[in-house]
């Protein structure tokens, strides 16, 4: 009995741990987490640029560097003890930042089919074989390329041909997730027999700021996504339809170069002659 009391005293009296203290025992976990974007959330070029534009608003740091470190550290999610820490509740613990203004990732996840099938953030965002803390997101290109699928379909309705460009997010949350600094673009093009472009439709998805200054969500809903319906796709001699879904790490116009943009999905259809 005495040993049990001693153990309890030892555990409850253990001081609050700083990040470097955790790594003394949790070596692998610390190594995996150090390689994530979360670990350097306050050091990324995107953040530094936006934070500068925001006149270094200290509120931004409540998520990007809650402990004034280079990014998120152990205690920011696990608390300050006493050791051993209570098991984290996912996705609630993620919501503190991922439902912050300009995000709706966790809120949208809760209404998704993935949540209903008992999947949570860690079901997808942890690298296979990477332990529990190798968290990945859109900055992992291979992972990002699975974020959505694009389909084309042509149907007849009241004697009219209607082209449907259907975007189906596979994210289990809003797409793009993350902050207002990202966007997803759907580009559909009608091509003639000589491959020249005859028409083009472009749509942007992501957070936007309306003329009244209020933020509005125009992200793609999980599972549902969006159907862009275009009548008479064969007009102007179009023979081939090509569509592309592009993820960008900047919110502005498509013409603005983004060296990190990724084509998530493509689809092509040859119209019947």
């Amino acid at each position: 009995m005495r040993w049990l009391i001693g153990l309890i005293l030892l555990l409850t009296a253990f001081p609050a741990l700083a990040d470097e203290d955790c790594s003394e025992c949790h070596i692998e976990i610390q190594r995996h987490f150090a390689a994530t974007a979360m670990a350097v959330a306050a050091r990324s070029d995107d953040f530094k640029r936006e934070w500068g534009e925001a006149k270094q608003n200290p509120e931004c740091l409540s998520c990007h560097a809650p402990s004034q470190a280079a990014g998120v550290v152990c205690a920011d999610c696990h608390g300050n003890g006493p050791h051993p820490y209570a098991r984290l509740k996912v996705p609630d613990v993620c919501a503190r930042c991922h439902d912050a203004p300009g995000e709706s990732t966790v809120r949208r996840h809760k209404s998704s089919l993935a949540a209903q099938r008992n999947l949570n953030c860690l079901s997808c965002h942890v690298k296979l074989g990477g332990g529990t803390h190798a968290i990945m997101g859109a900055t992992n290109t291979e992972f990002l390329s699975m974020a959505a699928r694009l389909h084309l379909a042509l149907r007849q309705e009241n004697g009219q041909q209607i082209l449907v460009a259907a975007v189906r997010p596979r994210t289990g949350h809003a797409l793009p997730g993350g902050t207002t600094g990202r966007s997803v673009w759907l580009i559909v093009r009608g091509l003639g027999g000589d491959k020249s472009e005859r028409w083009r439709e472009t749509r942007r998805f992501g957070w936007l700021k309306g003329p009244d200054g209020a933020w509005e969500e125009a992200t793609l809903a999980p599972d549902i996504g969006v159907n862009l319906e275009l009548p008479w796709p064969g007009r102007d001699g179009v023979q081939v339809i090509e569509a592309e879904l592009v993820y960008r790490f900047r919110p502005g116009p498509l013409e603005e170069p983004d060296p990190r943009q990724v084509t998530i999905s493509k689809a092509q259809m040859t119209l019947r002659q």
Partner: protein
Amino acid sequence: MSPDSVADALVSPAPPLILDARGRDQYALGTVPGAINAGREPKGFLPSTGSGPLVLILKKGATSYLKRSWSERLSPYGYKISILNGGFEAWQAAGLPVEIPASGHIKPGSTPFIIPRGLCEINSPAQVRE
């Protein structure tokens, strides 16, 4: 495929494409999340070339002729076709989520808006919001 199997497949690494072939009116009232309105006539439908699973939602009491027609229409495009057992009614009865498609569609047309440059942004006017 049973509704539960379809729901599991939708959150798997290779989710099926869902085609709702009950016609516009029934589709508009509610469908499986992410389903595409394929119209009612297999002859008038054309998918993009694809691969992988495809689940078809047919109207209640669909004849074997209709099922065969859809299968013949879609098979050449590379899909592995299944039919949702019990149709959309069985999906609803299983308590699975329903999409009201009108809310998910966008149509050409425009309301001006301003693209943000970030949460604490400098704005630049452009584009069109649907």
